[in-house]
């Protein structure tokens, strides 16, 4: 299994994602100006920032040359994981429904959170059980998932809500406690918490490996 990790100017967690992916397979960095996915089997759009995010988060990154290829890859069923800023970019790119708004506190929050696996049948969650709890850190200012109610209803009906914050853990005010959603086909997953920061018992948890490793 070969992962490609996108790097934008301002990406912060791309090396963490690379290290995490290398625990379960190979990983290469994909430069934002490139248009070659180097034959990878899965793409991770990592966390951090992209081009400074001076505008709406992720709004510029979706126009990066590499993102055109990622979109094409995704629409042909390629596995794509968007983490934090990567989730925001995938929403901007229209690969996922909804948008990420500023946390209700309007503050950056870094916290270990408990997630509940809602849909354990997509490629990224197939190593989990439905209802299983995962302990994974989240850290962001703009992570409040939002979509119009009809869209949320549709996501629920289609089983596209993959991860929810466990009761009491929704610190950012996300609609219906949503922490992660997938596209209709299930090959593209976006989530605000950082599974690449939950891959080593020494740094707090290995639950993130269940997501990243499932694709391998």
């Amino acid at each position, binding site marked *: 299994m070969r992962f490609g990790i996108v790097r934008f100017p301002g990406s*912060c967690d791309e090396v963490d994602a690379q290290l995490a992916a290398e625990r379960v397979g190979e990983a290469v960095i994909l430069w934002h100006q490139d248009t070659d996915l180097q034959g990878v089997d899965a793409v991770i759009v990592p966390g951090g920032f992209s081009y400074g*995010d001076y505008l709406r988060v992720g709004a510029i990154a979706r126009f990066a040359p590499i993102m055109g290829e990622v979109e094409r890859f995704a629409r042909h069923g390629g596995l794509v994981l968007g983490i934090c800023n990567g989730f925001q970019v995938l929403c901007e790119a229209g690969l996922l429904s909804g948008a990420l708004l500023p946390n209700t506190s309007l503050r950056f929050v870094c916290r270990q959170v408990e997630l509940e696996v809602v849909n354990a049948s997509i490629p990224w969650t197939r190593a989990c059980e439905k209802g299983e709890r995962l302990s994974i850190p989240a850290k962001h200012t703009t992570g409040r998932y939002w979509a119009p109610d009809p869209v949320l209803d549709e996501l629920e009906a289609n089983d596209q809500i993959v991860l929810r914050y466990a009761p009491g853990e929704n610190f950012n005010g996300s609609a219906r406690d949503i922490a992660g959603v997938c596209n209709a086909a299930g090959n593209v997953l976006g989530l605000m918490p950082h599974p690449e*920061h939950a891959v080593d018992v020494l*740094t707090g948890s290995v639950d993130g490996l269940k997501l990243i490793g499932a694709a391998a």
Partner: protein
Amino acid sequence: MARHRELGLTDHEYELIVEKLEREPNEVELAVFSLMWSEHCGYKHSRKLLKTLPTEGPKLVMGPGENAGAVSVGGGMVAAFKVESHNHPSAVEPFQGAATGVGGILRDVFAIGARPIAILDSLRFGEVADSARSRYLLEHAVAGIGHYGNSIGVATVGGELYFEGPYEQNCLVNAMCVGLIEERKLIRSAAAGVGNVIVLFGARTGRDGIGGASVLASAELGDADADKRPTVQIGDPFEEKKLLECSLALLDEGLLVALQDLGAAGLTSSSAEMAAKGEVGIDLDVRRVPLREADMEPFEIMISESQERMLCVVEPERLTEVLAVCDKWEVNATAIGQVTDGDRLRVFDDGELVGDLPVIALVDECPAYDLAPAPPAVPIYPAPRRTLPDGLDAGGTLLSLLASANLASRRWAFEQYDCIVGSRTVRRPEAADAAVLMLEHGGAIAVSIDGNGRRVAVDPYRGGVEAVLECSANLACTGAEPLGLTNCLNFGNPEKPHIAWQLTRAVAGLGDACRALGVPVVGGNVSLYNEGGGGPIYPTPVVGMVGELPDPARAGRLGFAAEGDTIALIAAGWAPAAAGSELAKLRGEAVAGELPPADLGSLRALHAAVRRGVRDGVLRSAHDIAEGGLAVALAECCLAGGIGARIDFGAPADEALLFGEGPGAFVVSGPAEALARFGAAARIIGTVGGGSLHVEAVLDVPLAELSRAHAGGLADLLH
């Protein structure tokens, strides 16, 4: 007023400049001298004192004088680190002041080629409960630190935060950065190679931060500070992130002869220092500098403190490659001058010579003043306002302490910082007495930053000693041995005898403690003139340490871990007393009295014993007894572990034992038989377990109550 006085130079200093130049300086030259000879850049009042600090140690790789110090951490790697102040900018504009404080210290670390892996910050404000201004400064300084560190992807792993009246007008924002680099890849800042090209890269140069080092950092704060807002720089962490990656890429490809960041005094100090260290001259043409505003004067370009800029020396044949790397990272890069034979820093404006300065005079011949220390004749600081209700029992006193601004949980602040990026953080805030970060070769480093101004105010010498001991004790609790120390000396106006006395005594204490513990000072920073209308700040030496531990899996924790574990007090010469304590403060007692002495030799052995106990896995928890005394330390161990404790001292526990403060004691827990190795140094005082902190015949407080007081404390005070 004479122009040189407006720029912060004395008449005597001006005469000295005329003597060095053998003529009157022009506007550019005067501006350059005023900055290089400012307290901030020239250390006029502290240089002689700093020379008394020990700077040799077995693991030392790079001592004071470079952009950051460095110590060997094994596996061919070194940890580079330094702490710096950004106090006055933060008092004037807290968000940008704190943000650019972080940006500046990051650049110091990657200027020697190291990748920053951790940020710590040491903050002081006035009483948040009483002061809307302090709440404003706190909120915005914390947000600024988070904004910069989070955006650039460097973990903010620790820090400290205290509130005291004397910081009301003059807050303190000290930031420390730790970076990692292979020892053989370290780069220095000495310019070399006549004919080599000077390349400025990073952000464009604007009018922000004009006179920051002289007008703002080297004078007392006053009423007209709103006018000084233009002297505060504006930070852009995205620009710095690109600059960081670009700088490290340039070094990785071996394209640079020397590298230097632009900090205080901008192009002026960076070019002068590069030239002085390399014993060469430098020619610069300010018209080649990319500007934000077209009509900037040469002196403005030379002294602008616009952020996110670096200066490097490049061999002419490598210039194209250097520019290509910068282009890849979308970083501006411009050749603005060259290294020359000689000892002059010459400034040109589109080819016309507008400044011709002797490098040695600028950098090395800044006058150094003798201090005239004298202990104060009358107390300097008013007693704090009493906030402790009357008639509390020991349990009530403990809850009041836990809820007080200085002891309540720092979660409100540290949750605003990304403490995990980089995948190294083994101990996050509130998990241990120091942050622990693992390294590629299998070991780990522990980092801590400490200082307690109130205790230094009570006794500058013993307070200075305690700052070093506290930091070392915190490292010991994670199993780490200190390798090196950086300090930031935050004091009032050193031209006043009582401030000079505080400074002299505190530095003597720092030096003695460092020598006794065998820890070298690798560099640091001095911030003087921290006074407002309300008088000077507490004398606040802040100490940051980096230590190493062999096995991150055995990094110590502060929380009690297992029901039934034995709790012991491990101490050496511990004589806790009320003077300078948190309890004395809550009672509104004068900042006076006698701090307990410290027997440095036995404390070094004590720290080593605790360190070994943690490393060997014998101690399941270890916590240094500090602010708030033993009772607060026990409560913190219970809260961090989520489990209670039953304590029996076997004798009546007096107030000094419960709440007194003084160096030299730890609360540890582990299996009973394992604690035997500590012999007489360990006094068994109880057992882990239950849902409350129970001290026989003294107090019994349920965990939930402890938690309510501690967890809610800071947030409650803010709203």
